[in-house]
């Protein structure tokens, strides 16, 4: 097991190294380099100054050389300065990471709290009215554009009924817990509904498959109650393939979080990365993308470990 985890951590490091180079190179291809930005904001700069500044910041050196200089600094924890926030990039990122983790964590919990009972209910009587309704919900969930779902929730609950705030994380001057929770409702609802369809679909399919197995008949034959058969015997086995799906879903969940955060002006990583790219804040965009990738890969690894825990047949030796 520890060998497996060590191998996977090495893989994570390798993916991060490759990603950092690719993103570094891509960001160099974005319009407007830092010197252009300085020239446009300072009319007194002469072409000679621009050349001097380029040499000063090392922008005249080849890409590979610049990348290694960046990587060396990054490994010591120096991700450069954020142009937009005038702070070290890492200091800007950390508090946002917590906000995004809260949003994503709450949505995963809500999604499973809804999808598990619904999936079991549907799988008990395949083809029934309940099953068709659940199936419809799956298709709606995977087909709905998340930003439009957010718009509709804002339209109904914020603009229409006026019962929930349309964005932000707290009312200015009021940082109390109930107020913060109120601000979380719509973002979490959006991300939950938009990400639940896929999970629900797998839970339902996996439960139907499991309930057909011989050991379920055995359990029923020896007189186990329906609840016990469903939860102790079937669900535990049905969850195994579901966990693999969960492991692969964190990336798209983060993408969903980016959209949700943008819609609700929620100060998380996704919105920060989006703003950084749009605002030519290269250091911040690069550090943000890498931190997001690292988080997603670690969550992925955690789900793989959970896989071994719930299925004793799997051992990663």
């Amino acid at each position, binding site marked *: 097991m520890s060998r497996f985890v060590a191998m996977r951590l090495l893989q994570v490091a390798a*993916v991060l190294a490759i*990603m950092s180079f690719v*993103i570094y190179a*891509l*960001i160099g*291809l*974005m*319009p407007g380099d830092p010197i252009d930005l300085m020239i446009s904001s300072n009319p007194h700069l002469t072409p000679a100054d621009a050349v001097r500044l380029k040499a000063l910041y090392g922008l005249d050196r080849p890409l590979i050389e610049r990348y290694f200089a960046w990587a060396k600094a990054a490994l010591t924890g120096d991700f450069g300065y954020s142009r937009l926030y005038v702070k070290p990039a890492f200091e800007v990122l950390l508090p946002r990471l917590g906000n995004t983790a809260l949003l994503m964590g709450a949505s995963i919990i809500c999604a499973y709290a809804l999808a598990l009972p619904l999936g079991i209910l549907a799988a008990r009587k*395949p*083809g029934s009215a309940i*099953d068709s309704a659940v199936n419809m919900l799956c*298709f*709606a969930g*995977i*087909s*709905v*554009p*998340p*930003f*439009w779902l957010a*718009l*509709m929730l*804002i*339209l109904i609950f914020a*603009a229409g009924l006026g019962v929930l705030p349309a964005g932000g994380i707290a009312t200015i001057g009021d940082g109390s817990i109930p107020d913060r929770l109120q601000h979380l409702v719509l973002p979490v609802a959006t991300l939950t509904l938009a990400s639940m369809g896929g999970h629900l679909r797998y839970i339902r399919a996996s439960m*139907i498959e499991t309930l057909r197995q011989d050991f379920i008949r055995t359990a029923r034959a020896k007189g186990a109650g329906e609840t016990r058969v469903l939860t102790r015997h079937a669900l535990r086995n049905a969850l195994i393939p579901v966990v693999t799906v969960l*492991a*692969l879903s*964190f*990336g*798209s969940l*983060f*993408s969903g979080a*980016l*959209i949700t955060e*943008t*819609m609700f002006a929620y100060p998380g990583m*996704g919105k920060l*990365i*989006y703003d950084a*790219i*749009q605002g030519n804040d290269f250091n911040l*965009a690069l550090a*943000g*993308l890498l931190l*997001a*990738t690292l988080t*997603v*890969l670690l969550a*992925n690894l955690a789900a793989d470990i959970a896989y071994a825990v719930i299925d004793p047949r799997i051992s990663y030796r």
Partner: protein
Amino acid sequence: MRRWRDAWRDRRVAWSGSLLLVLACAAFIVPILAPLAGQEWGGVDLYRRLASPSLIHPLGTDEIGRDLMLRLLQGGRVSLMVGIVAALAAAGFGTAIGLFAGFRGGRTDAVLMRATDGMIALPLLPLLIVLAAIDLKKIGVPTSLVDSEAISLYRIIVLVAFVGWTTVGRIVRGATLSLRSRDFVRAAEAMGASSARIMLVHILPNLASPIIVATTLAVGEIILLESVLSFLGVGVQPPIASWGNMLTGAQETIAFAPQLALYPGLLIFVTVIACNFLGDGLQDALDPRAERRL
């Protein structure tokens, strides 16, 4: 041919297929006919901003006085076209990868499938936003093309196809794996056919059904992705309308013009759900060996 008739008997296939056909016909034909109805019908009219529905404007007008229904159809033409073209490109690429991985098996398969999984596991949206922001002149695309209005269309097609191939790749790989050990493939091998010949002549024609199913699902997936990118302002650029970019300004006008936020999103939703139902129904109908859905 019989299988196709059977497929049409599936309620999901019939309904979603007809719906998509009607939408596509309306989106491709009406904007062409529009100029015949008079220039001012589709044009900007600042005196008729946010007008309520009337005989001339069945759904009213948008924030600068353009007919909303016409604009929705023009947007639909772009969204459907991007979805179909990109899905075909993604299907080609995904089929190549899936066929190769499934046929070669072993290490090649393991490496390719890990790469596919890895790609699915990454947070792709922020990466796509970076890719959409790069200056095409810096990678040697001719200036005349970069400055043309349609460049955002070409760019988005390449971007979403780059992400959309994974679904097709996995489905084709699975189907190839099961075909690979069939007798007719073994027979061809025994008769000394080359790998390329077996893949292209013996296996590929048998992959028609899974490829059609996967492409249908990919169209939905890609339309959804295009709408997200266009909504965020990094996909199809105005003045070209797409369902996604029609919603970009909708959040500001939602309090007094909710219809502008409602319709484009509803059309994306309906189109994507129809593609998913169609793909799912076709899968059941075209692949009789797979277990019947309950």
